[in-house]
């Protein structure tokens, strides 16, 4: 192996090792090398109804829109879903969201697509 390749390999390796230590054991929140399994679990349970022109409510199921089971659905994530229904689907949504995270389990009302304490 040429000396240039040896030096490159050693420098890249050292850089990766430093990155792994910082991401895995210090910041623990980076995209790569942090492995934050279960570090900040948060779950949302939606009970949403959209207004329809006929006046009858249409139930909204979050999982019809998501890729797959999401194990880190935060309050911000819940609001993002409501933003989507309001901005893209033009839905007027009401109901409630139960959020279970590090603070415990709490309920928030949904009024016309917005989370309300």
């Amino acid at each position, binding site marked *: 192996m040429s000396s240039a390749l040896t030096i490159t390999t050693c420098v890249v390796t050292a850089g990766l090792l430093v990155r792994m230590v910082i991401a*895995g054991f210090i910041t623990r929140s980076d995209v790569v090398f942090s492995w*934050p399994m279960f570090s900040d679990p948060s779950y949302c349970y939606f009970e949403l109804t959209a207004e329809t022109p006929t006046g009858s409510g249409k139930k909204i199921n979050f999982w019809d829109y998501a890729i*797959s089971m999401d194990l880190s659905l935060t309050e911000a994530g819940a609001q993002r879903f409501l933003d989507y229904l309001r901005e893209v689907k033009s839905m007027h949504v009401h109901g409630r969201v139960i959020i279970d995270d590090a603070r415990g389990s709490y309920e928030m009302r949904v009024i016309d697509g917005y989370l309300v304490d």
Partner: protein
Amino acid sequence: MGIWWIDAVSTAFDMRVPALPSNLFRIGVAVAVLWKFTSEQFCGAWHYLDEGSYVRFCYVNAHPRGPFRSVTFYRVAYVAKWVAAAGLFLDIGPQICALVLAGWFALEIGYDWKYHTVFLMLACAILSVDGGSGSILRPDRLLCLLDTDCRHNLVSTATTWVWPKWITLVVVTQMYWASAYTKVRLAQFRSGTTLVKLSRSLYLNRPLLRHWEYHLPKMMVNYLILAPADVCRRRWAVVAWATIVGEAVLPIGLATPVLPIYYAAFIFGAIMHTGFTAMHQRKLPPFGIACLAAYLMIIPVRG
């Protein structure tokens, strides 16, 4: 037997090792990737980033300049990932294919971040610099592989650069130790509360999911989910501590130069990943397969 990963460092990675582990790693990662892509294809992955979809809404919010804003680019990349996965499996330009797959996963975590996708990305990045991962297990060597003498000669003479093997050991070790470190710092995880909430979320949401993702055995539901919360927590706490200890000890077993200890660690890791997969049977098999392939990659060898 010396310790290969110490020899690798002491020679500044200017060392060759048998290529069979690399070949097994390539096949294992290719199977994992093909499994993942097939599973996602059946769940409508082709349409994930269509105009008006929720996934697209989240992606554009998080990455206003992301390349997948273009549906055409997403579709081209989607086809490329399938071609690359097939190429990696069949050993048609495996390094280029691995690089394409690493690039795909780097983009995929932009709209669907999952830690096992990150692991597959790293595995593919490692394969992209491993020139010997296609030297043994390939279709045109099939006749040779079926012949005992030819196979023995091929396996005993084929070698590859040690660095991909070394960095695989480091990635596997870092993943398990960082994960164990995070878990052991979390009182919620140690007490079993996290796993109680996780299992209940899986149980409550399962009937609402659009596609089949997992099945929870009745015994598990009765024993670990529907039992009183305190009882469930105590039971899950045992699992939580077993996971922490397992993740902390496993890399040591895999890095040992003593083959029986390595094999014991391999079996222990396989059991642990089977346990993880039991919680989510659709999403986690590719991760388990890729991890086992990584274990094969780091089997003790003579440098």
